[in-house]
């Protein structure tokens, strides 16, 4: 009886704790999810002076992800004012009318219109991106990085990498002189929690 108390009961208690804290598959894969601004990231890179790749990021990414019939729909907003290159003057220049014109166009927006599954947890998402007052169609490959239920509730994540041409959005500063490349590589990683 003593052995039962000191060995078996703690083992059973420990096993039950382990089971409750472990991530489990979500009960439902449908519904709306709010993008977590803290754990979502938008990174961009541009070729500088034909030499190095310069990286910057946007610290404020928000919006929603909706799952319906196993397919995701995205509405993602990026606050231009949250641009961060670790250089305040450079941030100011990127917010000026030379580039994003943050005063007049304070957000970059992507709204998807359709999606199709193209592989294991990979989706081809078609939508429209609005930046610098110009709206263009955009097709991206979204990879689902996970969907779990834990102590924070039901969460999921997506990631995509795509390229934009600045000139398509009337953002031409430095292209002709070769200071900065026309194409920008963008990486967006989203984490969202069930609403």
């Amino acid at each position: 009886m003593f052995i039962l108390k000191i060995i078996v009961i703690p083992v059973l208690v420990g096993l039950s704790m382990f089971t409750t804290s472990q991530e489990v598959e979500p009960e439902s894969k449908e519904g709306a999810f709010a993008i977590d601004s803290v754990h979502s990231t938008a990174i961009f890179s541009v070729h500088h002076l034909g030499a190095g790749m310069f990286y910057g990021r946007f610290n404020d990414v928000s919006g929603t992800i909706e799952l319906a019939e196993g397919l995701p729909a995205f509405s993602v907003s990026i606050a231009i004012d949250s641009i961060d290159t670790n250089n305040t003057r450079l941030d100011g220049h990127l917010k000026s009318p030379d580039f994003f014109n943050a005063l007049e166009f304070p957000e970059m927006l992507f709204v998807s219109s359709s999606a199709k599954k193209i592989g294991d947890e990979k989706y081809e998402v078609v939508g429209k991106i609005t930046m610098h007052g110009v709206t263009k169609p955009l097709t991206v490959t979204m990879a689902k990085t996970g969907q779990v239920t834990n102590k924070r509730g039901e969460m999921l994540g997506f990631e995509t990498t795509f390229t934009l041409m600045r000139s398509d959005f009337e953002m031409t500063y430095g292209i002709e002189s070769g200071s900065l490349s026309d194409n920008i590589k963008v990486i967006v990683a989203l984490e969202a929690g069930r609403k």
Partner: protein
Amino acid sequence: MNPLEIAQFIGIPVAVATGLSIVSWWFFSSKRRQPLGVLIAVGCSALVAFALQEGMPSVPPTQKWHWLILTVLIVFFLACLYSLFSKWDKRIILQALIAGIVAAVFMQFPGQSSVLDRIIIFLLVLFVSVGLRRLRIPAWHMYIVAWSVLASLSILALQASFAKLAFFSGAMSAVSAAMFVLQLCKPRETKSVQMLFGVIIVGCAMCGLAYDPSHAVPMFAWYLPLIGITIAAIAFLLCKPKFRSVISIGLLELCLLASVIWTIVQSTPQDDMWP
């Protein structure tokens, strides 16, 4: 800013202004038509300076700062009309009032939509245009003023991380310098030109102020060059003819130096911009 950009964004407008001015010596040779040549040279070079960076402006503009060139073009057409009618020559205040109203209505930069902002823009255009007219005696005097004021505004715009505005005001400063040289070579009548320069100068200052929300350039530094023109014009009127040119330009240069040095001293030198 690199040499290629300077050659393109500043050199081409200067070449356009110089070329049109020289051509106008033959096409507008009569004293009555002479101002039209100068106006066309300055107006067209302003349009070229803007178009080289942003393309031809659309109506309504895609960005609010494009109202700068649209306002300049409206005042340019008005100034061309005035120069055709001799009875408008003496109506300096009325011309400046109309330019002020046009600027107050059309120059819609972000954060400057209140009635008070409209009144400030109107008064600035009025005082700067009339001030430049006072400094037009002799005509090269006005070009020196426009040259130095626009050069200082170009430096302020660069400090505010707005390179396109820096190039535009820099180009118009260089155009003023070219006009000054041409005026010395072949003196021409320059009626109504002060309105055009008045709107360009006030427009560049107010545009720079509007797109500098973090105040990288102190707010007063944007106004100081404009106040300097008015101070210089008053000094020009009050001083003895022998000294008035030197004193008025000296006072203006002091204001411009104070504005630029103040801005540079309070900026953070460790930070860098795109080249």
